[in-house]
């Protein structure tokens, strides 16, 4: 996935990747990534858990906007099911 991100970014398009394999992402060198220590096959969380999924998207969009250099890897340290997820305040991203 990192190689695809690099190819897209090389075309002048900003990218942000969700990663659940940190070392792999770091080894390839990805422009912007959000790392979650979650089970494979669940980058956005669990089925029908909208607030959890939205929280992941929020972190990805925030990283997209705030990263100022490549190889930015943000770790929100979300603890899978052991968080109380609420819909993020999107207005913070739309300023």
């Amino acid at each position, binding site marked *: 996935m990192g190689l695809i991100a690099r190819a897209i970014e090389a075309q002048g398009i900003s990218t942000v990747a969700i990663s659940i394999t940190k070392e792999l992402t770091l080894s390839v060198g990805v*422009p912007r990534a959000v790392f979650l220590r979650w089970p494979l*096959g669940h980058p956005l969380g669990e089925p029908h858990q909208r607030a959890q999924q*939205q929280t992941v998207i929020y972190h990805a969009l925030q990283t997209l906007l705030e990263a100022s250099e490549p190889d930015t890897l943000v770790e929100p340290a979300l603890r899978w099911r052991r968080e109380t997820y609420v819909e993020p305040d999107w207005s913070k991203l739309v300023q």
Partner: protein
Amino acid sequence: MGENHTLRERISNWLFAIPAVAEWWSQRTAKTTGQLVDVSDPTPFAPVTKPLAQMRMALVTTGGFHRTDQTPFDMENPLGDPTYRVIPDATPRAELTITHKYYDHTDADTDHNVVFPLELLHELVDKQVIGATAPRHFAFMGHIDGELIATLNQETAPAVAEMLKQDQIDAVLLTPA
């Protein structure tokens, strides 16, 4: 869909769903994959140039999604499948499926947003958080190895990047399996 799981594959998928096992695999694979990218080659970076609410966003996943009328990804080649599938933005949920035997996609089958958050992006357009979704999105299978990594790197990934440029996409969200 050519996705007949052997017992070994089922056990493997179950094991890899454990974050510590995935972490071990990630560290191990990083050592070989790191050699594929020239470390003197800096990571490209395209700064964001407009507010989120004006961006047109595309999704690119390596979760093995494709339309039911498209050829499924190749499950027979042990080196994987470096090709991609174009997924139009308006593809109905029922016309999307997953072919990828290298991860347990039971949960992603139940709710595509777990891996391919197209509905979530549409909701963000409705909420005016992002400007628009792309006319088409792209799916790979991931799990690509050996000489097929070069095919991905030199052919299929640049081809997708070119189409994203044609579609005047501002930002791409990438999601793994």
